[in-house]
């Protein structure tokens, strides 16, 4: 039996690395402090591998063929995809993969009813690159990246995403070797609307409402209230990246989230949230 040693969620806005200095000093400090708090918890949890789950920004899969979930089998991942290097202001990097866990997730996930697509490699943009840079800058912890469809209708429902989180927990606990200590990190959100009329604003009210719901520790209420329509109301085509957060929620169930940071960072065009489920 493996163990799920930590479950976390954090925003991955490209401005955090790409045009960091544009944000107000206080906001920069508080967001970084949140990431550092997450990193400290992650290190204390001493994982042997990290599953990171995030929206595929139509980078790996075109709008006409978008799997609900996809996982990369590679023994080593390479990022960022070249066109995104300048945007993210991050150098090219390599991070070890974990093919055995990736294959286990595909095999057992399929049996459990998840539409999950194995691929040899995934291209990374901000979704994995930004959190990796902040959370595991030495890039030694093996990574199993899972992309999901948060922005191409018809998307996996919040209920499905939550159920996937439960399946991931069971896979770790029942199908991983005993010494395997797995951290699960969801990235994306909070409110933002790439390419839409509200691209240059942040919906602070929506973000605080969502975070407070997570802090209640009542997932049934989260699923009742945080519908796809509600996500679009908080910023179309971006805010629904919190579907990844609902996967994380499904892995913890009724545990209340601890909010490590929240800042509405208009300069980065994104509501920035960082949470841990202790």
């Amino acid at each position: 039996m493996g163990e799920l040693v930590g479950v976390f969620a954090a925003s991955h806005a490209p401005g955090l690395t790409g045009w960091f200095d544009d944000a107000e000093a206080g906001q920069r400090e508080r967001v970084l402090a949140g990431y550092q708090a997450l990193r400290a918890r992650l290190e204390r949890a001493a994982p042997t591998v990290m599953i990171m789950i995030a929206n595929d920004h139509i980078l790996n899969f075109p709008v006409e063929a978008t799997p609900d979930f996809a996982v990369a089998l590679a023994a080593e991942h390479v990022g960022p995809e070249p066109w995104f290097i300048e945007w993210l202001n991050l150098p090219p990097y390599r991070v070890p993969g974990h093919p055995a866990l990736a294959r286990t997730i595909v095999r057992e996930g399929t049996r459990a009813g998840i539409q999950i697509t194995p691929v040899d490699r995934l291209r990374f943009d901000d979704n994995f690159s930004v959190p990796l840079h902040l959370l595991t800058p030495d890039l030694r912890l093996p990574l199993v990246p899972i992309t999901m469809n948060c922005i191409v209708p018809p998307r996996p429902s919040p209920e499905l995403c939550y159920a996937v989180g439960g399946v991931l927990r069971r896979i770790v606990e029942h199908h991983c070797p005993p010494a395997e200590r797995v951290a699960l990190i969801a990235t994306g959100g909070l409110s933002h609307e790439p390419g839409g009329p509200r691209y240059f604003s942040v919906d602070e009210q929506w973000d605080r409402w969502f975070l407070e719901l997570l802090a209640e520790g009542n997932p049934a209420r989260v699923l009742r209230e945080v519908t796809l329509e509600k996500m679009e109301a908080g910023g179309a085509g971006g805010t629904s990246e919190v579907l990844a957060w609902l996967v994380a929620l499904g892995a913890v169930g009724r545990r209340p989230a601890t909010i490590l940071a929240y800042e509405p960072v208009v300069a980065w065009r994104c509501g920035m949230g960082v949470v841990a489920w202790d």
Partner: protein
Amino acid sequence: MAIPLESEGQRSALRRDVQEGLLAKLDKTARINRLIFEVRLDAAARARLLQDLEGVMADYGLSEAERAAVRARDFKGLIELGGHPYLVAQLSRLLYGTANNRNTSVAAEMLRRSIAEPAAPR
């Protein structure tokens, strides 16, 4: 617009997603989506886009309406024609540069002119 179905069982077997708003405008067959999806991944294609925009649009079979919108930098119009807003935002970066994509960058400003609601006074 909900399509009438015979039973609740049929209805619940289908996925439900938003029926209005930005994502509901998506046309998965719109050629602009394929163009942006592929050009991002190929340095030579990115360079050619800047040298020969008309040729690239012809190669991808964009509709006349899509071509006119690209020429006019009418990003909002491209979304109305079925372009995914995420990809359309990236078209601005393909055309105007992707480094330092702050709110005051040319790529962001060109996008804002087309898509954004007027800024609230500060």
